[in-house]
Structures are given as structure tokens and as C-alpha cells.
């Protein structure tokens, strides 16, 4: 931004001081210091440095889990790194994008950009309205210079046609009368370069503002839905909800979404990718309070837009339907419990809590293996994600689930501090193992548990050793959704286009001055000089001046 030190009206260069005087710096004073800091801050160099720093400062946000996007990850991190985590916490590593240091960088960048753009805009505006400068006396001194001597004609007509030619080529022109009887046209082009540059910078500020503040007007929320169940877009019905700073949850659009069917296609031809999911199709029914319904489909990377909300498919898994009966045989609890997938073959972990109906509260930690395979160690593993040979194993705990006094507990964890283990592990009792349709007694005669086959066409419970039974559809699936609105997307796109357009314009539009001067010689010929001056990098200047001379010659009817 600063002008070169040897510009024309810089005044005399400081003379070398005599030896022994030392270097005497002028005192800046308070205002002077402020001005100095302001100059430094608003220099292009600082802006670039800050932009780079912003990119670097954003890196830790992807190395360490962030509260804003992955609060559970943060808790995990604290558990796994009890020494490191509090240290990172003290420098706001878990809230990088809201931290003091990150904010200072982008606020400084803001100030720097604005402080840079405003004076430049003012300067550019004035430059656009001013006339091209007077033609220099000695054009041959300029870097790009060429000269033609015309037989016949006169300087006036030569310049007239030059004037027309330059105007047609998009130059701003001005005619000048020289002292030695010569006439010349002074022309300048490429104001668009600076305009582009300013658009680029302003759009960058706009982009930062949009992302920084605009994001606060949206929200992101998550919800797990089991097949056949319905979610209603109210705060009540979300599993978790992350509002933007300025978002009012009363503004949630009222609608209901029923998960009708969740289909997965698995790769079965390519043995190297055997069992990889190829396609997820989520069939949903949307319903408005007015009663209107609409069948829609949600796919990965193809969100459902409905009533201003974007609904993304986030994850999926199995939700085995479990029924628990008391010792007398009456059902005390039944539900489809979402089990969280632990690996690519959907070995899934789930927690089942039976708070009521039995003598003591029961908690169960279960593993579901969609295609179970017993390893040599005796433990199960899943070898394929679809339901070929589903097995559910459960470790049973009895005692206090810890939810009666109103304190919230994680639905994906079982706190066994106040519970005794009845089966599995070190209890000495085998874990419960069930296939769809089978039932088993709970330890100590506490009742029975059934792993329901939800396929309506399923026959009688299968024999444990049978391998021919078709278990397709025996376990319901669940899908998790991320619902969010981001009112800024349109603006972000607009600013992105402006940034790119501005940058390209400022890079590829050359800014140059061109002069054409004609002088009547004493012998009746006319001397025409062409010269160009680059403003900034302009490797094409020489060629451009030559081309101009050629076209001017053609226009004047020069024979070649």
C-alpha cells in the first residue's frame, strides 16, 4: 500500500550524517505512535500475515474435539488425557473458534482490511474522475517505445485517428498540445484492475462478517428415529440442540417426519469391498399441522429441504426390539433400542434400562452381531453388516439406575456403581444370548427377556443351530438425522463469487498508460511516436504498444 520511497514528490533524500552523530530518530509522541501502529496494521503485508495466521490458528480446531461440534468428544478427551486436557482447556483449545486468541486474529484482520479498503476506495474514486496525465516530453525514454515516420498527411489527422482508435480500445483519453508544435493523445486503461482488487477485499470482509455473525442466526440439532416412529420439529423432540447465538428456538418450523423405511444396499460383487454400504435410502413421510403429507427420500449428501430446514442423514444402525416380562409373565417393558455401531460390520453396542415393573431396576449392556461368528476365544464378532445370522448378547445388572432423583444420565452408558452384575463378566453366569424370536430367563428368576423378530412374515422361533432361516428384516433399523438451517448460505455464495471475480479481474486486467504523439517535420513528413508505461507487472506492454502502432498505421492507410 505504501508508495515507493523514491516517488517524485518525496523531497530531497536525507543526506548521510557525519560520523559521530549517531542515528537520531524523531520522537513519535503518543498520537504519532498510534498513527504508526495504525499504518502498520492497515498495511497489505499485515493483512496477509493475519490471513495466514487465521488459517494456522484454525488447525487446532480440527486436531482437538470442539464443544461446538462434538461435545461428547470433549468429554472423552478429558477421560483419555486427564493431564493434558485441563492444560488445553486453559488456553481454550476446546472452543477454538470462540477463543480469545482466535477472535483477536480475526478482529484484527477485520480492522486491517477495513482500514486498508476505505482509503484505497477513496483514492480510486478520485483517480477514476481525474484526467489522464500530460504527455511526457521525451517519449523515447520510456521502456516501451516505437516510432514511425509517415509520408504525407499531418499531425492533426494522425492524432485524431489515434484518439478514435484508443477510445475504441477502452482507453480513457485526453488530447494535449505540446510546446514544440506537437500534438499528442494521452490514454490510460485498467481502472478495472483496482476496482477488482477493491471488490476482492470488500467481499472478503463481507464473507468474514457473514460467517462470523450470520452463523449465529441458524441452528443444528440431532435426532435418532427408529423405523416406524415419528419426530416432530420442536425442541421437546430433539436429542440434542445447538442454537446459534441469535437463534430463537420458538422459530422452529412445525412439521413431523416419520421414518417409514431405511434401506441399505451392500456391496456383494467386489470381494475387496464386500459388505461396504453402497447406498442408503431413507424413506420418510413429512406432515404439516394442516394435515398435508408428502413422501420424501433422504440420501447421503442429498439433504431433504423442508420448511426452511435442511435434514441430513447422519448415521444409522440397528434398533433391536426387546420385551421384558416379569416372573408372572406379563409384559413390563418393550421398546426398540438404538444400538450404536462399533465397526464396519455393525457390531453394535447398546444399553437397555428397565426402570419399572420388576423388583429391582435392571440395566443391560448388549452387543448385537448382525452376522455373528464365534471366534476361537469364544467371543463373537460380526462378519457382515446385514442380518444373516443376528445374535444379541446381554450382560445383566440389577440395582439403582440412578434416574429416580431427577439427575440426567447418558442413554448410551450404564453407570454400574450402584448395581450388581447378574450375568456375563465375572458374575459366573453366562451372558444372555438371543436370536430374533427367542426368549430367555433373566438370572435369579427375575423374569424373561425376548429379542423380538419384527419381520411380520417371520415364522416360528428358529432353532439355534439352523442356518437356513432368513433373518432379513428381523431387526428394525434406526437413522440419525442432523437438522439445521443456515440463513447465510446464499450470502456466502455471493461473496465467494465476488471474491473470485475480483481476484481474477485484479490479476488479469493490465493497467497501463499509453501515449501517441505526432509532430510535423520540416520536410512534410509526420513523425509519430508510440510509448507505454506499465503500472505494476505488465509483461505484455511492449507487444501492446507495437500492436497499437500497427493498427494505427493500418488505420492511416500505411502501405506495408
Amino acid at each position, binding site marked *: 500500500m505504501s508508495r515507493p520511497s523514491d516517488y517524485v514528490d518525496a523531497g530531497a533524500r536525507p543526506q548521510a550524517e557525519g560520523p559521530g552523530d549517531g542515528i537520531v530518530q524523531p520522537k513519535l509522541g503518543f498520537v504519532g505512535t498510534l498513527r504508526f501502529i495504525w499504518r502498520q496494521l492497515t498495511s497489505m503485508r499485515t493483512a496477509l500475515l493475519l490471513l495466514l495466521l487465521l488459517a494456522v490458528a484454525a488447525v487446532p480446531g480440527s486436531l482437538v474435539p470442539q464443544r461446538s461440534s462434538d461435545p461428547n468428544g470433549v468429554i472423552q478427551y478429558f477421560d483419555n488425557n486427564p493431564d493434558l486436557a485441563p492444560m488445553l482447556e486453559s488456553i481454550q483449545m476446546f472452543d477454538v473458534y470462540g477463543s480469545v486468541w482466535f477472535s483477536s486474529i480475526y478482529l484484527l484482520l477485520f480492522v486491517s482490511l477495513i482500514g486498508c479498503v476505505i482509503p484505497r476506495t477513496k483514492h480510486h474514486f478520485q483517480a477514476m474522475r481525474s484526467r489522464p496525465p500530460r504527455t511526457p516530453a521525451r517519449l523515447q525514454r520510456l521502456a516501451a517505445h516505437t516510432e514511425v515516420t509517415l509520408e504525407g498527411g499531418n499531425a492533426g489527422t494522425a492524432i485524431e485517428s489515434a484518439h478514435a482508435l484508443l477510445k475504441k480500445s477502452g482507453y480513457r483519453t485526453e488530447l494535449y498540445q505540446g510546446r514544440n508544435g506537437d500534438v499528442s493523445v494521452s490514454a490510460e486503461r485498467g481502472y478495472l484492475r483496482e476496482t477488482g482488487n477493491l471488490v476482492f477485499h470488500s467481499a472478503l470482509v463481507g464473507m468474514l462478517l457473514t460467517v462470523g455473525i450470520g452463523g449465529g442466526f441458524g441452528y443444528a440439532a440431532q435426532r435418532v428415529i427408529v423405523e416406524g416412529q*415419528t419426530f416432530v420439529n420442536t425442541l421437546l423432540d430433539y436429542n440434542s440442540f445447538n*442454537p446459534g447465538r441469535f437463534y430463537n428456538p420458538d422459530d422452529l418450523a*412445525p412439521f413431523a417426519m416419520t421414518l417409514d423405511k431405511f434401506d441399505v444396499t451392500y456391496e456383494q460383487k467386489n470381494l475387496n469391498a464386500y459388505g461396504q454400504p453402497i447406498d442408503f435410502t431413507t424413506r420418510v413421510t413429512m406432515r404439516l*399441522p394442516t394435515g398435508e403429507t408428502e413422501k420424501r427420500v433422504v440420501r447421503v449428501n442429498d439433504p431433504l429441504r423442508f420448511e426452511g430446514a435442511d435434514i441430513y442423514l447422519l448415521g444409522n444402525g440397528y434398533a433391536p426390539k426387546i420385551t421384558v416380562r416379569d416372573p408372572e409373565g406379563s409384559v413390563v417393558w418393550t*421398546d426398540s433400542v438404538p444400538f450404536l455401531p462399533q465397526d464396519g460390520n455393525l457390531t453394535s453396542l447398546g444399553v437397555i434400562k428397565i426402570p*419399572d415393573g420388576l423388583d429391582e431396576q435392571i440395566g443391560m449392556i448388549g452387543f448385537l452381531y448382525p452376522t455373528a461368528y464365534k471366534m476361537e476365544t469364544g467371543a463373537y464378532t460380526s462378519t457382515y453388516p446385514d442380518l444373516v445370522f443376528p445374535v444379541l448378547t446381554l450382560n445383566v445388572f440389577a440395582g439403582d439406575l440412578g434416574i429416580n*432423583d*431427577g439427575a440426567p444420565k447418558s442413554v448410551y452408558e450404564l453407570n454400574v456403581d450402584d448395581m450388581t452384575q447378574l450375568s456375563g463378566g465375572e458374575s459366573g453366569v453366562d451372558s444372555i444370548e438371543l436370536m430374533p424370536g427367542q426368549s430367555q430367563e433373566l438370572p435369579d428368576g427375575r423374569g424373561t427377556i425376548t429379542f423380538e423378530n419384527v419381520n411380520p412374515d417371520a415364522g416360528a422361533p428358529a432353532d439355534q443351530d439352523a442356518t437356513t432361516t432368513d433373518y432379513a428384516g428381523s431387526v428394525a433399523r434406526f437413522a440419525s438425522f442432523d437438522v439445521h438451517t443456515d440463513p447465510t448460505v446464499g450470502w456466502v455464495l455471493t461473496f465467494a463469487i465476488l471474491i473470485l471475480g475480483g481476484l481474477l479481474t485484479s490479476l488479469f486486467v493490465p493497467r497501463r498508460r499509453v501515449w501517441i504523439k505526432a509532430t510535423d517535420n520540416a520536410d512534410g513528413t509526420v513523425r509519430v511516436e508510440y510509448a507505454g508505461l506499465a503500472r505494476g507487472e505488465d509483461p505484455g506492454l511492449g507487444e501492446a504498444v507495437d500492436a497499437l502502432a500497427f493498427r494505427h498505421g493500418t488505420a492511416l492507410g500505411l502501405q506495408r
Partner: protein
Amino acid sequence: MTRRMRAAAIGIAAALLLTGCASDPLAEQYKEGSNKGYIAGDGSVTEIPEAERGESISFSGTTEGGDQISSVDFAGEVLVVNFWYAACAPCRAEAPDLQELSAAYDGKGAQFIGVNVYDQADTALSFNETYGITYPSILDVQDGAVKLAFTGTVPPKAVPTTIVLDKEGRVSARILGQLKEASILSTLVSDAIDE
């Protein structure tokens, strides 16, 4: 820029900054990452004066006992609608208070109706047995009809939420989260009955 515009701009900027800095309980809850699976309320009470109430709400559904009930069945009565589910810790904690109040207002102009947002019938029945709940609950997990009916101007924003509907079916009060004291709800209900 005129002086007034400048003052307005500063005012707006200050307001944005202040709202930005104030801690938002909903955002805090998200950052806790407790995996509790529901949005909790802080027990805050909203009362709506009679003149400012919105549309009247009507709803219907199947109860845990298999009966069809509808808000129309209780026309002219004050309705207390409690959104809950069995494994929700604050719902369990407030259940005795709700049962006590429901018994106290039985036949005195107010009817309690539960809306179970997650459970199946058997699970809800076991809960009722634990806490001796005698009022009916509509099971809403499969079709969400009742939740959708309540997405009006004063929506339920937490589990549990207790909403008092006046005699005309309009929302007259809302308690977000666990009931702090039975007397709070009792006052809201008797106010609605006395209107």
C-alpha cells in the same frame, strides 16, 4: 453519517455484543455433551394473560390402556398436559407431584393428561404402576400427532414440559422442565379454573 444514525449503529452493535456474550442455557446444555438424549428445561414458568392467548389446541390419541381419548372429551375443563417418558430422570422425579395434583383436581374442573413421547404401552403402564399414576397418557412416539398439535405459539421446549390449557383449550401456562414445586402448578391450574 448523522449523529442519530451513528448512535443507532452503536446501539445495535452493543446489543449484538451483549446477546453474544450472555450465556445461553440451551447452548450450554449442548456443550455439556451428557448424551442424556433430551432437552432439559430449567423449571421456568410462562403465564399468558387471557387476552394474549393463541389458538385453541385440540388433540387426540390412543392411551397406554388402548382407549381413544380426545381433548373434546374434556371440553369446558381445564387440561393439564404433561409431556414425559419413563426413562427421563426429571419426569420420574416430578411424577408423584403430578399424581397428587391430578387426584386433588379430579372432579373439580381440571383433568390431567400425559403425553408419552418415547415409550410403548407396556413401558408406560409399568411407570404408572411404580408411581401410582391414575390419569391417562397418550402414546405419541409412533405418529407424533399430539406433539405436532402443540407446535403453536407456546410450544413444549423440554422434557418434561407441563402445559395448562384453559377451558377453551388455549395455552394459559407452561412449565419447562421438572416441576420445582407442586404448589406452582396448583396455582396455575386453580387460576385457570377460576377465570
